[in-house]
């Protein structure tokens, strides 16, 4: 069964800033895929299309065999609920307590009234506790989120996705703002979750090493198109050099603010 199918997906921002220039991709259910490529390759834009934040300018996108490009309202929200996203900058609400950020994962299930009530008296505390325990920060449940370190906040974001219990997990540069040892453990955690619950997992990674170590399928992206789509043992140094050629070496690349084509557009 196919989780995702993309046919000639194009995304253009404004008049002519081409972020994606015709992507073809198919991802099977339960598959683990790492996307690598230089900054500005369109990886983040692709993820925002995959989690239905953005609509493609042209092309077709199927999720679970259903076409999703023209979904609106309730149908669109239901489709989004099945896709959990971990973001590079965590994208948590800093002034809320950790538990409320985790419970955000339930908003798609909850009625508006119930979600409001939960701000006064948190609902599903046990589920939130289990999710935080799974990522090892259960004791922070009632702390304010902005009091946590970057790595801890990323774990809160993962707990949010755990509570959402989606069919797909998308992780957009989940480890680029944490130190290398923590990075490896967070990627391991994500792959384990995917393994244990048979969730499809797509991860954008800056670190080629982590991608090759943890993922059976590597997609290289550059200039808004896919360059290769191979098993890790087939990804040669030549291919990697080609992928990153014309771009600054690794250390300086971190300096560049990550690809951010226009403001987030919510629909």
């Amino acid at each position, binding site marked *: 069964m196919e989780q995702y199918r993309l046919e000639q997906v194009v995304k253009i921002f404004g008049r002519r800033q081409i972020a994606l220039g015709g992507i073809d991709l198919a991802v099977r259910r339960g598959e683990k895929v790492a996307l690598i490529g230089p900054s500005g390759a369109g990886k983040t834009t692709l993820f925002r299309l995959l989690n239905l934040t953005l609509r493609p300018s042209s092309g077709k996108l199927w999720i679970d065999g259903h076409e999703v490009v023209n979904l609106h309202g309730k149908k669109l929200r239901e489709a989004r609920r099945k896709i959990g996203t971990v*973001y590079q900058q965590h994208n948590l609400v800093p002034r809320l307590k950790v538990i409320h950020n985790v419970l955000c994962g339930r908003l798609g299930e*909850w009625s*508006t009234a119930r979600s*409001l009530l939960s701000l006064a008296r948190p609902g599903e505390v046990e589920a939130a506790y289990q999710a935080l325990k799974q990522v090892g920060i259960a004791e922070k449940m009632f702390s304010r989120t902005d009091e946590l370190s970057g790595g801890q906040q990323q774990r809160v974001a993962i707990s949010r996705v755990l509570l959402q219990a989606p069919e797909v997990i998308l992780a957009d540069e989940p480890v680029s703002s944490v130190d290398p040892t923590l990075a490896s453990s967070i990627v391991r955690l994500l792959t384990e979750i995917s393994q244990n619950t048979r969730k499809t997992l797509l991860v954008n990674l800056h670190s080629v090493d982590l991608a090759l170590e943890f993922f059976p399928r590597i997609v290289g992206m550059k200039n808004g198109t896919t360059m290769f789509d191979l098993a890790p043992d087939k990804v040669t140094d030549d291919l990697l050099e080609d992928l990153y050629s014309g771009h600054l070496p690794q250390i300086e690349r971190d300096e560049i603010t990550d690809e951010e084509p226009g403001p987030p557009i*919510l629909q």
Partner: protein
Amino acid sequence: MKNPAHPYSSNAQKSAFPYLFGLFFLLALVDSWRRVGVDLFILFERQGRDNLTKFVTGMFPPEHSAQFLSLMIRPTLETIQISVMGTLIAIAIGFPIGILATRNFSVGGILNEADTTGAPTRFALRLAIYYCARGALSLFRSIPEFVWAFMFVRAVGLGPFPGVLAIGVAYGGMLGKVYSEIFEAVNPRPLEAIQSTGANKLQIFFYGWLPQVLPNFVSYTLYRWECAVRTSAILGLVGAGGLGQQIEISMRMFNFNEILTILIILFLMVAAVDYLSARVREIL
């Protein structure tokens, strides 16, 4: 930026604007000094000194007879009522217009959902709403409270009500402007993340948007309430009730000691509001 190897490279093309602006500011300062006739020595010349002494010595001791104090209770309560009602009206005016005057909301939709690419008329309409809202806010606050009160006294008669309206409109303009700046600073990324869980607009509003704006919103509104207490006293001078009206009466009778009493009451009220808002900010 993690590693600013060339900290100045980004402003390579130097702009002359800061220098021009600095020069302009300096000229304006010199010119203002000369024209307004700042002359501190006038304060110490014979006549000025005499008047000042008469005023200050006349203030002591502050009037504290039980009769006068009990007379002040009603105007004091009235001042509080004027400031509270005025601030509430100001919020009712400032909040909605403030939202329209927030560029990324009125042009992009309250959660940036409006897609105006390829729809120039819709874009122009939204831009027009934005500029109208900004214009209205500027108008409301550029006319001094005092003048508003003057107009409302003519319209609805003497008493606290014109004072309430004056504060409501003038402060509505100020609150709206600051609200729009607070709204402008909302980080849309958490909103996008909450949306991606399948949340609806109201849920995004309460979980992502409100927690981000609430602290600044509350603390600035409380500050404006504090100002409204003071302003309501001034508005009394044009007949809009409250302690201001008492100040005016005492001024006319040259009862400076009564004025000092009223000023002390005002000071205590402002201090109390300040204390209250400090506590509220702590909770948030």
